[in-house]
């Protein structure tokens, strides 16, 4: 077994996704991370990469809470205790969404229930079953230029990458990249393009659990992970 394959075999789907997505972050970027899997990404950032994490409830420079930074009035967007990084700032909700809608956040990374080949995304409600609400997701998707969906490829085998989303949309034509444990798709004006493949899988494996149509990049490579 090759060394590269070993790197994948040893890791869970979520860890593979987080390690691959970390490579999307470049020095100096302002980033907003959705709840769940995306919050795992910062721990895999290469040590020479510094990013500023924006938290929509009011932090520029979100940091992990340590014992000496614990403060009852510093929380993240899921209501959990958080901290502000050195050089960071606290802002109100109007300013926070002004930054998001004004294009001052470089990239947003979030999970999704469904994403489709037109780059539309559905993650805020399942009619008749679950209506948590959109929170800040609609604003992030409409306002941030780079939207990366980082999610497991299927929901227990049921495709999540579709020709057209069937659930109520969070935003239309917004996704720029999809990263799963199996592969990476770029979302282009003409549809999805497979650019990287986890060596544990074949293109046929991906096709079997992807409802959307996709092209295969002529520069297709093995999936990179940190």
């Amino acid at each position, binding site marked *: 077994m090759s060394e590269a394959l070993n790197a994948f075999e040893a890791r869970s789907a979520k860890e593979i996704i987080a390690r691959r997505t970390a490579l999307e972050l470049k020095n100096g970027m302002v980033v907003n991370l959705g709840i769940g899997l995306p919050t795992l990404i910062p721990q895999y950032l290469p040590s020479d990469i510094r990013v500023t994490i924006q*938290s*929509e*409830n*009011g*932090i520029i420079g979100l940091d992990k809470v340590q014992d000496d930074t614990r*403060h*009852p*009035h*510093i*929380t993240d*967007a*899921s*209501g959990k*205790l*958080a901290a*502000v990084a050195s050089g960071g700032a*606290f*802002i*109100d*909700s*109007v300013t*926070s*969404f002004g930054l*998001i*809608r004004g294009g001052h956040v470089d990239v947003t990374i979030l999970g999704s229930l469904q994403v489709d080949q037109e780059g*539309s995304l559905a993650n805020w409600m399942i009619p008749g079953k*679950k*209506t*948590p*609400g*959109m*929170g*800040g*997701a*609609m*604003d992030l998707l*409409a*306002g941030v230029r780079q939207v990366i969906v980082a999610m497991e490829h299927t929901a227990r085998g049921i495709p999540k990458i579709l020709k057209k989303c069937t659930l*109520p*949309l*969070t*935003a*239309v034509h917004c996704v720029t990249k999809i990263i799963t444990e199996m592969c990476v798709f770029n979302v282009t004006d003409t549809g999805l393009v497979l650019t990287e493949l986890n060596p544990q899988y074949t293109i046929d494996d991906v096709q079997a659990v992807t409802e959307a149509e996709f092209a295969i990049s002529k520069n297709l490579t093995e999936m990179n992970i940190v």
Partner: protein
Amino acid sequence: MKKQLSAKQAVDMIPDGAVIMCGGFLGCGTAHRLMDALAASQKKDLTIICNDAGLLEGPNGEAYYGVAKLIHNHQVSRLVTTHIGLNPEATEQMNAGTMRIDLLPQGSLAEMIRAGGAGLGGTLTKTGVGTLVEDAKDYVVGRQNIDGVDYLLMRPLSADFALICGQQVDEEGNVWYAGTARNFNQVMATAADIVIAEAEQLVSVGEIRPEDVQTYGILVDYIVNGGQDDE
């Protein structure tokens, strides 16, 4: 000097059926003493405008945190909010038809309140284009195309009362917020007829430097000292 009230006195001013903006984000920055008093008052048929539906349990194990107290008491007939996922009771009441929930994008909610407080006729945003938000006619005038880009024209929002909470409030009603507690408090103070500021710490005028005032005393009508005993 702004008039100081107990939490109970403040809540006594609020009639059944009032429209109330409640600051805070999942309870951080919410006027908890005013929530307690409002819950005890059994005022009913309230329309609450708040980022979220609060939490079933607060960070220190408190039962019903933020506006969740009012929802648990069935005092809210309509909740205008962005997210209810962390309060299952809100979902239950929505499904039972006993509480109407109007969901709006968080940035749109903030800007609609800003428009309400700044005398604007609405706010134009790309957020929500092509989604169910377009169907919320109480809140959306419709699609507008400006220079080839589609926007939604969102109506301004205002309220009878805003209940806000700051770390320090001076006797003129100037407010300074700690950490992320500012969130919706700052803008809500601009968009309600009567603004009640709960003070975690009541300080003398001048103790908050003018540069650090985040909600201006001119907007605040009453102060509730969250540190003092009620009555």
